[in-house]
């Protein structure tokens, strides 16, 4: 084999099962020196599992791994690092209260060394940063860094440990379009210097932009492998999805009466992370999408409308009635249907039965209880109807909710929210982690509720999702909300600019300066 086609990584027949689920089914793959291999697949296709096996977080049930021709000891991240693998996780693994240099050196030096050779470390970090264009201040605290900078620290950390093969798990999920471009420039520089990259993504456009080779996973199987050159985008998309699922169409609809109004809402938060002067008007038959890089105040806005937190200033009006007592119970009573960001942590209680989760918001209502006792039969009948209506698979009313898949769990939440025919729906990341089929179902249900007269606020990091279902999109940046842009005038460039803070007032820019 010639030098320029050297195989650095070989996976042989990797199989991994979780109970009845086969997450990886006999996957064999090779990676060449100086190449970017994109691992493409929907959520739940098995990409992250495969990389966790490679990095030693999981042990494969079958199959083995060779790195630079040598067999890799399974189940040991330490061995994987020593063999030259570096991983940048989707969720960063940095200590917020430590500096960049401490984070990079952490774990590479003996725990109780008398003397840390920080000068040499600093030199090495500076060299690496210059070589690969990864500019960060080594003495900055992680908590002060922006998301894109933190990612650079993660990459530096991997390179510092001598990584020759870099795995990036959904690296662009938290980046603005501009930051993504910068990341790609770095990756190109790395492969030009002989490193190899595995790039995990479910975004086809990015994969087409960066990869040399594309491997597609579907339901745990490797279903296709193509050089990027010559591969058609439509072809890859069709392979990835298996079959075409038609995305529901948003039909234009005249907006009705005002459902929700926010005026001058302000919530204080630590170092400028609160909400500032939020104004919004949501009408019946209208979906307003809220875009923005995560962490710009979307969660606070969602918590506010859900009744979890109180504003320090400003007012909220629901259906023409002033909403002053901010509690979840009042929000439910006012007809606000809430789909929370994290369905496991806040949406459902996994250790309760499905029927119990379905009535949780109304357990004191006379429909489901009398004199402090639950109406068992009414509750079971209610659950049975909703299970059928929302097609919650593998579920009886008494099934424990945690045994459901993510998509079916989301259907439980949707059922609970939509069953009361809410006037206002707040959907925060309603399709995160769902496969295309389940996500499409969620979109259908939201559009259906819109047709029935609900006003919907859809917070999402998925621009494609927002552009598919929203009547208008507003962008959040450092706690401020832009004016909504009507669907006809939206372009990705416009949104990208707003997401990076262009077009926000002086105040936002000033705070951006402070925080950076």
């Amino acid at each position, binding site marked *: 084999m010639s030098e320029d086609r050297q195989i650095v990584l070989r996976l042989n027949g990797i199989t991994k099962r*979780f109970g009845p689920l086969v997450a990886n089914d006999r996957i064999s793959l090779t990676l060449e020196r100086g190449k970017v291999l994109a691992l493409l697949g929907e959520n739940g296709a098995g990409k992250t599992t495969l990389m966790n096996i490679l990095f030693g977080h999981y042990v494969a049930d079958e199959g083995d791994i060779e790195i630079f021709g040598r067999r890799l000891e399974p189940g040991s991240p330490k061995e994987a690092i020593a063999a030259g693998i570096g991983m940048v996780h989707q969720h960063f693994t940095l200590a917020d209260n430590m500096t960049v240099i401490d984070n990079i050196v952490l774990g590479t030096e003996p725990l109780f060394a008398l003397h840390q050779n920080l000068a040499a470390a600093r030199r090495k970090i500076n060299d690496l940063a210059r070589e690969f264009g990864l500019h960060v201040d080594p003495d900055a605290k992680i908590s002060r860094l922006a998301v894109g900078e933190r990612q650079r620290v993660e990459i530096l950390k991997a390179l510092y440990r001598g990584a020759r093969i870099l795995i990036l798990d959904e690296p662009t999920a938290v980046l603005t379009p501009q930051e993504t471009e910068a990341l790609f420039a770095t990756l190109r520089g790395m492969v030009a210097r002989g490193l190899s990259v595995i790039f995990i993504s479910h975004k086809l456009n990015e994969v087409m932009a960066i990869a040399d080779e594309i491997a597609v996973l579907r339901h745990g199987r490797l279903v296709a492998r193509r050089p990027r050159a010559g591969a058609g985008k439509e072809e890859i998309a069709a392979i990835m999805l298996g079959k075409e699922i038609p995305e529901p169409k948003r039909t234009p609809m005249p907006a009705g009466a005002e459902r929700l109004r926010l005026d001058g809402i302000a919530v204080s938060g630590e170092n400028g992370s609160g909400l500032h002067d939020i104004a919004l008007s949501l009408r019946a038959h209208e979906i307003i999408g809220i875009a923005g890089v995560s962490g710009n105040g979307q969660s606070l806005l969602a918590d506010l409308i859900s009744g979890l937190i109180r504003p320090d200033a400003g007012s909220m009006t629901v259906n023409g009635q002033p909403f002053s007592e901010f509690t979840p119970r009042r929000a439910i009573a006012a007809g606000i249907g809430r789909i929370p960001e994290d369905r496991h942590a806040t949406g459902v209680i*996994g250790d309760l039965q499905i029927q119990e989760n379905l009535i949780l918001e109304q357990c004191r209502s006379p429909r489901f*209880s009398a004199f402090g006792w*639950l109406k068992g039969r009414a509750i079971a009948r209610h659950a049975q109807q909703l299970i059928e209506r929302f097609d919650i698979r593998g579920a009886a009313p008494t099934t424990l909710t945690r045994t459901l898949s993510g998509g079916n769990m989301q259907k439980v939440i949707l059922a609970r929210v939509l069953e009361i025919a809410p006037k206002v729906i707040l959907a925060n990341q309603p399709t995160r982690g769902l496969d295309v089929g389940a996500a499409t179902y969620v979109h259908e249900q939201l559009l259906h509720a819109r047709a029935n007269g609900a006003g919907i606020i859809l917070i999402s990091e998925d621009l494609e999702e927002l552009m598919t279902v929203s009547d208008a999109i507003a962008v959040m940046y450092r706690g401020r909300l832009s004016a909504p842009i009507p669907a006809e005038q939206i372009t990705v460039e416009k949104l990208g600019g707003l997401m990076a803070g262009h077009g926000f007032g002086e105040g936002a820019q000033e705070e951006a300066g402070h925080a950076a």
Partner: protein
Amino acid sequence: MRLEARHDIPLWMSAVAPALAVLAAMILCSALILWAGFSPFLAYAALIKGGFGSVFALSETLVRATPLILTGLAAAIAFRAKLWNIGAEGQLYAGALAATFFGTGMITLPPVLMIPFLFAVGAVAGGLLLLVPALLKAHLRVDEVVTTLLLNFIVLLFVNYLLFGPWKDPMAMGWPQGRPIVDEGVLPNILAKTRLHAGLFFAIAAAIAAWALMRFGVLGLEIRATGHNPEAARFAGIPITATTLKTALISGGLAAAAGVTEVAGTKGYLTLDISPGFGYTGIAVAMLAGLHPLGVIAAALFIAGIYNGADAMSRAIGVSNYIADVLTATSLLLVLLAMMLTRYRLRRG
């Protein structure tokens, strides 16, 4: 080695596992008995006979199980809401104090009213005692483990003060004990020639009521929701603080009822030793029962039987009755391990 969640747990497994764990605990403890120079077979035979082997042995076990059922329920319900009430001992004495205060002549009613009245005032006293740490937890996030535990000592010292001072029975030949409960308030004996009293019926009824509340009551659902996931419960509009406070009232009340059964049933008057740690043992009872109110009855019988049997065993063949503590502790640890292994399986690598 790592743990993997099992997907469906067969019913026989969750039933057989605790029994096997108890058996394993007995086998482990037999090493200690051998070490002490006795035959484990004889020792366990004496233990089982002493705990369950005759009408009298069984009646004594039931007498001991009565307060354990109530303190076990107190722990089981509080722990379901993740309210870590370690103060059942203090609440028990609070109940005993209230029963003594109202039941030694201050008020006399016919027995049908007097007995429920004593349980009521006792339960209110215990509930209010736990309400204080619960309020501190709900509003100031003060750790209730510390406050409930320390309140035990305060209450016990207060009982000490009362029994050596103002409440000392002048007819008790100088012993530190309270005046006897009036006849109308004494729990009737339910089996001749034994100490078995009607407190047992109350405890069993309380267990059934607690089970019904947790299973069919709106409050039960709120308690379970709050305990499993307070964030999601709050999101769904369940008043977390109110639920915690209600749980505290119920839990404290149940523990205090154990004080009433001891003062008005087993003893007839308040002493400093009406509880040999029933409040603390109640935690072990609740854990053994997997926090299930009906399981608490069985767990209380088991632990009461072991303690009574160990006393009999030490009298009969001379093995120290401390083996009861070791056996209970080992059983508890192994039952918890067994319950974990029914929910998860061990995997290599």
